[in-house]
């Protein structure tokens, strides 16, 4: 039984309206030892316009997960006196009022551990799920959201969000909680326990502890053990110097809807023999700025030799949970420099043999070749595509996509004058496409950033390594204004299409 499903013992139901005199600061100061992360969580509840806060105590006898956590602490800390937990839930209705369908906002579990008889209890937010405050309409793209059922004294409720968790520093550390957030996005159960992670990493709290943290090899063992695929990007200055920009790789994971862990070195003036301190956080989404100056300026003023714009250029901030500070923070794109960057563990639901950065480069070559061989079709949007491609000014956006999602997108795609793609071509793709593949959307600056539309897309195989030397075999299909391509029995076929305008870019639906 986890904390979401355990019955709670009613403690109190507070009226949290400002006009009722409730203060988040005072509440946390008086009840939770001025805990800063809990204050952050209450401030998010305030942004969601919460009007009441229900406090329930969770007891060991009702929650096997609590008993398991306390047992692990008893092994790790011989003087451990016990741990208690409160489940705090946030509501838009007044205290005790019948809750409407939109009244439940979310919950947090706060755990207090007395590690020895003489020390003050140590508190941490064991877990919390709240919806993000900013959504797509605010240019925030958080793709790892999922739903959770929560039992409360006021009846069962549901919340959608990205699970946040904080380390206790004894039996689980920042790597555990970052993994927990990421795995919660991917695993069918929507969560994973620390005891399972520790078992997979060989941590027994006696001979192997997490006193110094978790090594990447242990994180990889956990990911492999739970059956999640991952790609690793390493940067260790003077030993393994990453030849490319890590932000492009990071974006390649989250734009496809998969979480990634971002590890970095702290500025440490006195690093020990094992090196300086490090921290790792889960990246769960990004913000988008359609007025970004950087894409143009980077090329015009700073001698960037790119021959296309990656859609990542308009990314403004990464959205992350930081267990030290709380959920849903924004990390500005260029704040974390390569000097500090150390590790990305980018997760995938399925194995992928080609990375987003590699496939984007290949797609660019395909698109340029088409434009060179077919510079004009005699219709305006194809000819514009061709000009942008030959000028090195396309905008490319790479997404790993499931066949069903692509076919749904394709069937719904209309030009401004409501022309859809030919139904028989969709049927051909339905028979020919693999279950998942890379889709690289091709657009132009204002078309992409403001209208959120594109010339078309190219579909490339993700299941095999790229051929050496490169050949057309990875190409599955391509749709451009007035032109359709697909691969059939090892041959590429091209035909014309009545769909001759631009169409909307792909948008993953948020639950």
């Amino acid at each position, binding site marked *: 039984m986890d904390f979401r499903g355990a019955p709670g013992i009613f403690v109190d139901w507070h009226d949290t309206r400002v006009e009722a005199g409730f203060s988040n600061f005072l509440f946390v100061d008086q009840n939770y030892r001025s805990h800063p992360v809990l204050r952050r969580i209450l401030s998010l509840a305030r942004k969601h316009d919460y009007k009441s806060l229900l406090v329930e105590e969770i007891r060991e006898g009702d929650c096997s997960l609590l008993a398991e956590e306390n047992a692990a602490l008893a092994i790790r800390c011989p003087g451990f006196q016990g741990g208690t937990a409160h489940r705090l839930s946030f509501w838009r209705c007044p205290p005790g009022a019948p809750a409407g369908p939109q009244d439940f906002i979310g919950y947090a579990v706060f755990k207090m551990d007395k590690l020895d008889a003489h020390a003050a209890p140590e508190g941490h937010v064991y877990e919390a799920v709240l919806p993000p405050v900013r959504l797509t309409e605010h240019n925030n793209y958080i793709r790892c959201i999922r739903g959770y059922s929560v039992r409360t004294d006021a009846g069962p409720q549901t919340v959608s969000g990205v699970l946040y968790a904080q380390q206790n520093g004894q039996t689980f550390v920042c790597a555990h909680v970052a993994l927990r957030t990421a795995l919660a996005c991917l695993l069918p159960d929507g969560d994973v326990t620390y005891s399972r992670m520790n078992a997979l990493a060989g941590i027994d709290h006696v001979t192997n502890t997490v006193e110094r943290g978790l090594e*990447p090899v242990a994180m990889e063992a956990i990911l492999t053990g739970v059956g999640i695929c991952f790609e690793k990007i390493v940067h260790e200055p003077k030993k393994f110097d990453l030849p490319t920009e890590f932000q492009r790789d990071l974006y390649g994971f989250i734009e496809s809807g998969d979480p990634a862990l971002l590890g970095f070195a702290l500025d440490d003036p006195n690093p020990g023999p094992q090196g300086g301190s490090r921290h790792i956080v889960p990246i769960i989404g990004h913000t988008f700025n359609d007025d970004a100056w950087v894409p143009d300026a980077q090329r015009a003023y700073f001698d960037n030799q790119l021959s296309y714009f990656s859609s990542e250029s308009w990314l403004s901030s990464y959205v992350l949970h930081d267990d030290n500070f709380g959920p849903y923070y924004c990390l500005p794109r260029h704040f974390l420099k390569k000097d500090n960057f150390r590790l990305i563990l980018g997760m995938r639901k399925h194995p992928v043999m080609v990375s987003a950065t*590699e496939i984007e480069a290949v797609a660019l070559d395909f698109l340029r070749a088409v434009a060179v*061989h077919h510079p004009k079709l005699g219709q305006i949007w194809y000819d514009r595509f061709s000009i*942008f491609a030959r000028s090195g000014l396309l905008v490319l956006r790479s997404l790993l996509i499931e066949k069903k999602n692509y076919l749904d997108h394709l069937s719904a795609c209309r030009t401004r004058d409501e022309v859809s793609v030919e139904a028989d071509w969709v049927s051909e793709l339905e028979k020919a496409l693999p279950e998942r593949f890379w889709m690289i959307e091709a657009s132009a600056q204002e078309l992409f950033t403001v209208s959120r539309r594109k010339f078309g897309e190219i579909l490339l195989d993700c299941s095999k390594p790229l051929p050496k030397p490169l050949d057309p075999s990875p190409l599955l299909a391509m749709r451009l204004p007035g032109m359709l391509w697909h691969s059939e029995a090892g041959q*590429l076929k091209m035909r014309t299409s009545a769909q001759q305008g631009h169409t909307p870019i792909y948008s993953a639906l948020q639950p």
Partner: protein
Amino acid sequence: MTYATQQLTQALQELTSNAPAFQASRIGRPAETVDPQTFEFSAEIETFLESKRAYSERTRDVSFGSY
């Protein structure tokens, strides 16, 4: 205005002044087989892919630091 933008502007202006004649006869024609030689991949891309592959291979089994 950068060189690339100047080229783009000029090409778009030419496209607009020579309003393309829509070739309706092209629609509905059977699919043509494409000569694979249509695609010539640039040495620059091959070099980029090779450097990504080599770095990934070199760092596959390394594990530095603790988090």
